[in-house]
């Protein structure tokens, strides 16, 4: 009897991983296909980010940095859209900038899509600086004069010909910078722009990085933190526009429960096997 149980655990431990892939695939897919939704509760870190933008007077400039590409798009693009909706709701001016070459079109498409929704005009209500190589060098040079590194916008149109850019020269004219981060540019924004120019920052990061950004929040180096798809869902709730973040929450929840069950099952099998070997 004991030998049959242990044999069962051993078999279970060596199960073909493709069954695990199938289970996870189904657990994620079914809530999407059936349109299941769950209630999202807002965390203090995301509320803090929201309040920072919400407290800005009309006409303030928000710079959004697109520092991600298609690999992190499911987490960060919903954040971008929620923040843009918030900015356009409050008639804030939006300046987009990009430090990840492969992500420039994604950010641009998100910006144009939401701007169209709100009937905003390019050059008056929003604009896109595009990308220039040099990362930290670009950030530092913008502290003196944006035109020293971005003579023109993403298409090459001179900044001085864009009405909204007339009075925007450096970080003194920007109310808050929102960094949407999939890599190390978030650290650069904090260590160079916040440290040297005392620029207010909000970071929206992938969930992989979120745990490591809390020290910045506690130290007051950033004003708010939006972490992962859940963070995006929270921000969508705050701006009353549930979108992809909300769509993903049911799948996210049940996938987490499934993985926890996998961990528990795997450990039960491990301990049963260990007990059997010690008994021998």
């Amino acid at each position: 009897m004991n030998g049959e149980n242990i044999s069962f655990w051993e078999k279970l431990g060596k199960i073909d991983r493709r069954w695990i892939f199938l289970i996870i695939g189904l657990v994620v897919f079914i809530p999407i296909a059936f349109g299941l939704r769950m209630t999202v509760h807002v965390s203090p870190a995301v509320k803090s980010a929201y309040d920072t933008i919400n407290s800005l007077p009309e006409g303030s400039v928000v710079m959004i940095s697109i520092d991600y590409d298609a690999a992190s798009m499911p987490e960060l693009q919903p954040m971008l859209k929620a923040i843009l909706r918030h900015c356009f709701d409050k008639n804030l001016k939006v300046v987009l900038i990009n430090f990840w070459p492969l992500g420039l079109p994604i950010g641009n498409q998100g910006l144009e899509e939401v701007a169209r929704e709100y009937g905003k005009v390019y050059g008056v209500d929003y604009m896109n600086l595009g990308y220039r190589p040099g990362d930290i060098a670009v950030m530092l040079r913008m502290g003196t004069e944006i035109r020293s590194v971005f003579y023109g916008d993403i298409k090459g149109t001179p900044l001085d010909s864009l009405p909204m850019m007339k009075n925007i020269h450096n970080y003194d004219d920007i109310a808050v910078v929102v960094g949407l981060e999939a890599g190390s540019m978030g650290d650069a924004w904090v260590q160079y722009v916040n440290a040297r120019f005392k620029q207010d920052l909000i970071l929206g990061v992938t969930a992989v990085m979120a745990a490591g950004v809390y020290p910045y929040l506690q130290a007051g180096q950033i004003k708010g933190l939006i972490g992962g798809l859940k963070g995006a869902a929270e921000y969508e709730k705050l701006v009353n526009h549930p979108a992809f973040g909300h769509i993903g929450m049911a799948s996210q929840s049940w996938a987490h429960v499934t993985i926890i069950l996998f961990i528990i099952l795997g450990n039960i099998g491990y301990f049963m096997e260990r007990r059997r070997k010690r008994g021998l």
Partner: protein
Amino acid sequence: MIEALSIWVAAGLTLAIMSFLYGDNPVYKFAEHLYVGYSAGYWLIYTWHFTIKLMVIQPIAEKQPGALWLVIPLFFGALMLTRWFPRIAWMSRWSIAFTVGIGAGLTLTGAVHGYIIPQVKATILPLWTGNGLTSFNNFVIVVGVITTLIYFFFSKPHTGVLGKTSKVGILFIMVAFGASFGYTVMARISLLIGRLDFLWSSILKLVHFF
């Protein structure tokens, strides 16, 4: 029609990559090589548009003040490409040395001014504030930072008081890694949600088309 074709191709390529889950196969390899090839071409166009055209050619063509000096970094950038020719590849060292020097200088100042000093400042917390919970939280943060730093001090063997403190440190580190792992699972699942949502909405769009 063009949009329908785009959906078919995108969904097909998505499934091609996912076929790797069953096992490595030629369909996956096809998609993988297409991705690498397309990315390489993208980098070329990107470099031309944002580095050469907008940063060098346009300022010189529009006679911006000091634009002619950009010929010098353009020359150094071209020197970088001498790596392609073994006989004169040593010339690329000058360009690399320039970027390494600037990078090292920036990192040095950024790390100290932007991270170490503010973070150490934020760790100097009152261990008694009058509020029990806040005091406890501050104590936990301070102990966490100190014991973690002690754990990574390998110049002395971890015995005695140092050993016990570093044991506490490793427990704190495990908590941090656990939080990171939990968040990492969340991130990976989110990416999968994105793709499966795309596949489902593609199916719905194509059904609508036909």
